């Protein structure tokens, strides 16, 4: 009869067969590729959530725009990880679209806002 005490003391792991079973269980259910993908996606989503603080407080327009650029990058990363997770390479088209269009917001900010005197963009 195995109890928690055996696991904690490590005495169970002396049995090589049991050690293999435990390792395969961990690989299958905890450290599998899907779980890895999901953890990365959740981490990146939480990253976006944290970036919202700067979006909300950012004193100037440029701070806010850079935050949205960060969101775009994180979103692209999420999409790429999702492409691996869902095994659907067409998601990369969305990444391309985000990627090449992100430049026009920055150039718009630089060109349109620089004429305004008094406040740095």
């Amino acid at each position, binding site marked *: 009869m195995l109890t928690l005490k055996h696991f904690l003391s490590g005495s169970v792991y002396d049995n090589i067969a049991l050690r293999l079973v435990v390792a395969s269980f961990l690989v299958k259910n905890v450290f599998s590729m899907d779980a890895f993908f999901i953890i990365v*996606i959740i981490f990146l989503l939480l990253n976006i959530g944290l970036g919202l603080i700067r979006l909300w407080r950012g004193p100037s327009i440029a701070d806010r725009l850079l935050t949205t650029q960060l969101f775009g990058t994180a*979103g692209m990363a999420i999409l790429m990880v999702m492409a691996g997770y869902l095994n*659907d390479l067409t998601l990369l088209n*969305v990444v391309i679209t985000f990627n*090449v269009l992100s430049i*026009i*917001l920055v*150039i*718009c900010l630089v060109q349109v806002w620089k004429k305004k005197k008094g406040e740095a963009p």
Partner: protein
Amino acid sequence: MDILIDSLLAILTIYLAFRCMLAPKLSKAVFVFFAFGLMLALAWIRLGAVDVAIAEAAIASGFMGVLMLDSLRDFSLIFSKNQERLEETASKIPIKKDSYHWTTALALGLGLILFLLISIQAIWEVPQGGGLTAIAEANLPMSGVEHPVTAVLLNYRAYDTWLEIGVILMGLLAIFAAGGLKQYRKPGLAPAQDPLLRKTILIFTPVLFLFGAFLLYFGKMGPGGAFQAAVLWGAIGILLHLGGWTVFTVIPRRMRQILVTIGLGFFMILGFTQMATGGAFFEYPPAYAGFLILVVETLAAISIAAALTAIFAFLTK
């Protein structure tokens, strides 16, 4: 484990939507809206609608972003100029205290409850038949393309797509008719002197063209298509306008008119030709369907791109 991602995504999306509506400043609202667009694109991916996600990414965060930033600048200029006058007039207007309209509140509440009940009833039962998916899949070999969404958009329901191109043209005509919003007009942008800016714009122009063409052609077998490609091509015109090369106002007037209307016009001519040869409106002969769809998509993309450039060029004149 999927439910974790989905619930996090849903919470962020709804939170951002509320934040966008309740933002005290316009600049906050605009940038929260960008983040909301990104979340929406991710949500569409989770729902399996990659085409919609591309359109969302291209139009909401690319084209709309530029238009919003531009109008934000106009509004902030107007506000800073008229701030004192506005405050003066605001203090003069007597604030009327709204009485509590309980009838309005009751009607609104009842309507909301009814709407909630209907929507709950709608999502309670998952439809079993799968709608028209099976029929669409079965007729795919005759449609000339390999991607069901493109087949629906450009073959089965070509009439809708044709009118959608017309809607964009109508928007452009409305801007022309309003004279390009004269009261917000500002001096034209000078050609870019900054070498960094010039180089960036000149490097990104061919990249945008290449990826636009790729998305256009890829629409045959996967997510992509005319509208998404058109936004990327329209971004070329917007970039050049931002850099001071006013390409759209330089080319001759007749040429501009042809560029803007060629998508709608060719689609219509094609439809009537099919009617004249004994078919229904937009009934492609199966042998040439693939080629015809590609031509229609290319011309539609060109004219939508020209229309988007024109919207930007004439709004920021």
